């Protein structure tokens, strides 16, 4: 049992109220606390070292994501979805795009589903690396943090190659993706995964059987199976409690039913189980990405066209002079920042639906129909117009089920966009995980729920 806090130390609220010198002390943790990543306030009532009651306050990072989505077109919300989960933004992009596609009732191409699968899994590895690394650092294992961030760096470089950005990637599009995978992606991914696997091996050796780490993690932050389900917690936390629910397996979408992989589970529901689940999932994610890349239809994108590659300016000139015969069949060399958006790539990664997807750049530059099509999708009041209705699409985010519920009123702007944040349920249950435990245990427990302020507060 803890020593009751002596009255002499009661400098705070309720001091000297004559309760016999024994009273619980109120301590506020956060909103900005150096040992916690994420802006959140936990008001605790402590008795010595033990937390008796906790109240979690969120909302410090609220940026009106759902409200902002209602003022722009459907594709205008893509950059906002990046900022929901800034560690694995690709999954958010794709989930939102897939929800709108479901509302429109269109199918994306096969190659696009494989690209989404590969990029989602790379993001998931990044997310788990960050979570495990940061929570290990908070327990004093700074080396692990540096190693894992090193591995994440390789993966982010990969993401940068594909999307052109490291964090705010905006790579998903309704009906497809922004551009095809770049040249040499497979080789780079192999290298990045090799490095990541080495790091994971090292971390396993450093942490998994480590006495100090286990003392802090085993049996701490436990949430029973029933409560986990009652609090609608999904993802690694649910699987650590013994329920093998994974949206990728339960309701397969994209290419998840075409590849071999396992859903790792543990049974104890404590911080250590969550750590083990995340470590095992990273390996599974890499397996999925490797298989999906190997099976990807369309093969590598051939940039050395057999036609006559011509300069875009000459192409536009010819179009202006009315020399349009066969012009649309002529490949052009696009500016490097449009790489992967030429027609050959476009056909493979985008849904063939003029009402939804911007035309390939050759068509936009080389024909009046293409230009009109482009503007019809870009101009305010036109754009993508799903029929009246509503749709909910869920995929497995890094922290659990990431769902988008989109309601359309038939105009070019979403009537309502709701993000089902995977982080909110664990935070709603956080007080159940920390009450009755020591105040020092708050840190690993908070690390293991992997709070992402962007999607929690939206």
């Amino acid at each position, binding site marked *: 049992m803890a020593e009751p806090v002596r009255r002499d130390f009661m400098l705070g609220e309720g001091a000297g109220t004559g309760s016999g010198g024994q009273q619980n002390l109120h301590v506020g943790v956060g909103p900005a606390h150096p040992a916690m990543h994420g802006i959140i306030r936990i008001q605790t009532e402590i008795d010595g070292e033990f937390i008796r009651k906790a109240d979690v306050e*969120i909302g410090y990072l609220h940026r009106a994501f*759902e409200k902002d989505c209602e003022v722009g077109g459907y594709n205008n919300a893509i950059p906002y979805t990046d900022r929901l989960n800034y560690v694995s933004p690709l999954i958010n992009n794709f989930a939102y795009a897939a929800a709108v596609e*479901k509302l429109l009732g269109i199918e994306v191409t096969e190659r696009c589903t494989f690209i989404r699968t590969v990029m989602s899994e790379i993001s998931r590895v990044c997310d788990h690396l960050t979570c495990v690394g940061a929570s290990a650092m908070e327990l004093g294992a700074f080396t692990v943090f540096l190693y894992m961030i090193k591995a994440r760096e390789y993966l982010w470089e990969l993401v940068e190659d594909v999307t052109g950005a490291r964090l705010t990637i905006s790579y998903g599009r309704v009906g497809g993706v922004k551009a095809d995978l770049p040249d040499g992606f497979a080789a780079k991914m192999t290298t990045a995964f090799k490095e990541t696997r080495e790091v994971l091996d090292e971390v396993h050796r450093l942490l998994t059987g480590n006495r100090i780490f286990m003392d802090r993690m085993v049996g701490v932050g436990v949430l029973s199976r029933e409560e986990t389900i009652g*609090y609608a917690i999904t993802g690694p936390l649910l699987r650590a409690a013994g329920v093998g629910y994974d949206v990728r397996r339960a309701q397969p979408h994209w290419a998840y039913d075409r590849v071999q992989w396992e859903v790792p589970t543990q049974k104890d529901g404590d911080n250590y189980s969550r750590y083990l689940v995340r470590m095992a999932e990273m390996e599974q994610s890499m397996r999925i990405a490797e298989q999906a890349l190997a099976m990807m239809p369309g093969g590598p994108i051939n940039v050395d066209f057999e036609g006559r590659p011509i300069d875009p300016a000459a192409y536009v000139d010819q179009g202006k002079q009315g020399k349009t015969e066969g012009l649309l069949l002529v490949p052009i060399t696009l500016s490097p920042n449009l790489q992967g958006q030429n027609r050959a790539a476009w056909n493979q990664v985008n849904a063939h639906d003029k009402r939804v997807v911007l035309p390939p750049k050759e068509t936009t530059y080389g024909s009046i129909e293409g230009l009109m099509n482009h503007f019809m999708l870009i101009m305010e009041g036109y754009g993508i117009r799903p029929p009246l209705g509503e749709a909910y699409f869920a995929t497995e985010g890094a922290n659990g089920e990431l769902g988008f519920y989109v*309601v359309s009123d038939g105009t070019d702007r979403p009537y309502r966009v709701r993000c089902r944040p995977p982080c909110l349920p664990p935070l709603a249950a956080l007080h159940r995980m920390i009450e009755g435990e020591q105040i020092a245990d708050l840190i690993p427990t908070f690390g293991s729920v992997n709070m992402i302020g962007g999607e929690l507060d939206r």
Partner: protein
Amino acid sequence: MQGGQILQRLRDRFGGAVVDTHEHRGDATLVVDRGTLVDALRFCRDEPTLGFDVLMDLTAVDYQRYPGREDGPRFDVVYHLYSLAQNHRVRVKVRVDEDDAAVPTAVDLWPIANWFEREVWDMFGVHFSGHPDLRRLLMYEEFVGHALRKDYPINRRQPLIGPKQ
């Protein structure tokens, strides 16, 4: 179970209390009367063939400016349920008017409803009767209005507040 079978099961059980059902884009949707909401949710959770043990999401939609709904009930409170055992989903909706925007709470059925309902109260001003602690979730106490209502302008400024006393 297929969406159609789920809806059939619920229509058989609740008959007249079912306002509407549809399966737009494959999402089985049931609209129930407010008085039957908690019974319907409890039935969904406890009936073994349905087995909806997870309240995956709870949100609301303000239909004030929706074509065909300008005069009708203003808010839809939307429950997305999922069954771990049966691996199926259903969406349950309940319609409420603006001047009587209150829905019975589901906290007794699922503890997560506590925070989800606080968020809906915060953003839409829909009251949940019987909720143990209906505070704002994302906004601060002094915030005026409910931000996700359609008549809340996106650029409205809020009065500045000082530190708490």
